[in-house]
């Protein structure tokens, strides 16, 4: 197990190196940051000075080497938009908020998808099954920003139950978390449903029934424990959606997270911050996938990594 983790961490480094090249190149494709940063009437001399100051006169590969060299020392440069602020600090300050939202969204998604998935497998083709599918599909087919705005309209404007935006109390978290999490319910619920159906039809469930095990224990102990393995694979993918989903949702709800930050940074062509966000997101997603692989071995005794 230890060897497996070390090997995976080394792979992570290689992946991150690739990510850094892609991110660096993509950011360069988006245009000259001076167009966004400097006023139209700036003089040629001023433009030249800024170019040299930021090292943008160097060839691209030199820029990358400087970038990666600094990055390895934890220095992702200064924000262009907020001079004097370190890009990494800006991102890390807000990463907690984003992860907090993602965690609540994840809990919401699981809390909705597990019962719906299990019940619709147990009552296959019934009204429960249909209703479950409907709830799940609604979440997947409606765009984040639209659900967000409609929620604000219903729950904040009309009913005045929840605050429209910002962060502070638990109430602030409810709507954005549901918006992000709901999207995941459909996929997760369908995975659980199909693996539950397979599990419930298995010989070991038959044998458990023969032992006289109650239906509730059959569903939750014998069938679900097996059925949980498949959706777990999807968790890594899901985490990336939760993090990525934060971009629109945080903007709609003015949630002070990384997603909101990156939208501002992109608009301002704040290279350093965009690069940092991409690399931090990539790191988070890779680590989550590693965590899923480790969790895997705990749930399924047939998997041992050595």
């Amino acid at each position, binding site marked *: 197990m230890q060897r497996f983790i070390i090997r995976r961490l080394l792979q992570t480094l290689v992946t991150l190196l690739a990510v850094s090249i892609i991110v660096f190149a993509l950011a360069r494709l988006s245009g000259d940051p001076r167009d966004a940063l400097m006023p139209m009437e700036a003089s040629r001399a001023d433009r030249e000075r800024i170019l040299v100051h930021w090292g943008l006169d160097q060839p691209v590969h030199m820029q990358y080497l400087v970038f990666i060299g600094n990055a390895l020392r934890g220095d992702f440069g200064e924000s262009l938009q907020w001079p004097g602020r370190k890009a990494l600090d800006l991102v890390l300050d807000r990463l907690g908020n984003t992860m907090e939202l993602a965690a609540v969204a994840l809990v919401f998604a699981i809390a909705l998808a597990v019962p719906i998935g299990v019940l619709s497998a147990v009552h296959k083709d019934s009204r429960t099954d249909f209703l479950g599918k409907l709830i799940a599909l609604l979440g997947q087919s409606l765009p984040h920003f639209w659900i967000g705005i409609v929620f604000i309209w219903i729950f904040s404007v009309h009913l005045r139950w929840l605050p429209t935006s910002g962060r502070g109390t638990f109430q602030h978290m409810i709507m954005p978390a549901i918006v992000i999490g709901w999207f995941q319910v459909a996929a997760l619920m369908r995975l659980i449903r199909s693996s539950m159906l397979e599990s419930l039809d298995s010989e070991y469930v038959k044998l*458990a*029934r*023969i*032992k*006289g*095990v109650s239906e509730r224990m059959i569903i939750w102990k014998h069938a679900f424990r097996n059925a949980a393995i498949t959706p777990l694979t999807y968790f890594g993918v899901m985490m990336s959606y939760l993090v990525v989903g934060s971009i629109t949702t945080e903007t709609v709800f003015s949630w002070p997270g990384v997603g909101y930050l990156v939208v501002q940074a992109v608009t301002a062509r704040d290279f350093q911050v965009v690069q940092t966000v991409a690399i931090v997101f990539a790191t988070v997603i890779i680590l989550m996938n590693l965590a899923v692989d480790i969790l895997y071995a705990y749930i399924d*005794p047939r998997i041992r990594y050595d």
Partner: protein
Amino acid sequence: MSNEPTLRKNTTQRANGNVILDVKDLRTYLFTKKAVVKAVDGVSFFLRKGETFGIVGESGSGKSTTALSLLRMEPKPAGRIVGGEIWFYGENILDKNEKEMRKIRGSRISMILQDPQTSLNPVFTIGNQVSEAFTVQEGRKNNQGTLLQRVIDLLRKVNIAAPERRFSDYPHQMSGGMKQRVVGAISISCAPDIVIADEPTSALDLTIQAQYLRLLREIQQTTGISIIFITHDFGIVAKMCDRVAIMYAGKIVEHGPVRAIFNHPLHPYTHALISSVPRMEARVERLFSIPGQLPAPGEMPAGCRFAPRCMYADDRCHKEYPPTFGGLSEHTEHTTDCWRLEDPTWEPKSYSR
């Protein structure tokens, strides 16, 4: 159509002495979108204490559905028991509710499934799965220490070496034969009256098969349980069973003591089946096989199910299901569903071999 034997009436199917299970006219139908499949179509048999009763038939003949119906575990949601009685120690199992059935399953009637590779849950340890059989039936009154000891004793009973080490193994760490022993241990954990063995050895290789059959007999001798043995292998029937029923397309076509069935099969289907078992001493070019195949579900012949494949069939066989006839005089409890037996001296011709 009556289930009482007619003619050759020197015998009776209703048995005397120690009958613990008496199945009468059991009907389990599968309701699919296309058709109603009469998987078990009026099956009657009985089981005595301590004996082994075989049910033999091709796949699709309804033998497994019969077995599952005894536990009220007919394949749901399509399957439903639509008629009959299952008398078990004077109580009709078909009158029980689900909660009462759970008390019977495992503790009084249990079952060994066909494939040991899939019948144990892959994510729980052997110990967990064996001890569950105890805790489900007895509640959690056992303390962990005695429970552990009982599981180990049980595993030892089914000849698992070093059971105290095997206790915390997962199924994937065991061989097929060992897993099937564990399933056997689970089936006898609560000292049941009846163990239904649904082709328990067809997934095992031949040497392991012989060992397993020996183990079952040992267990039967020490505990006195009755076994319903479902198989398609006449060799196993000869080795294991006291009495045997031959099933064809949802019906028991012949039923009797193993020796009577082997020496004097009266139903043309049984006769053909036994003739198709290869013999060491016979040198033949080709093995005998019965022409045709089982009727497709939903396309059951109106009369005798076997008539389309039967070399003796006449018009009436195709139109009307035959009554149940008693067997030859020297064999008691031998019954056959075949029109030919109206002639008390009729016997199927032997196939040229």
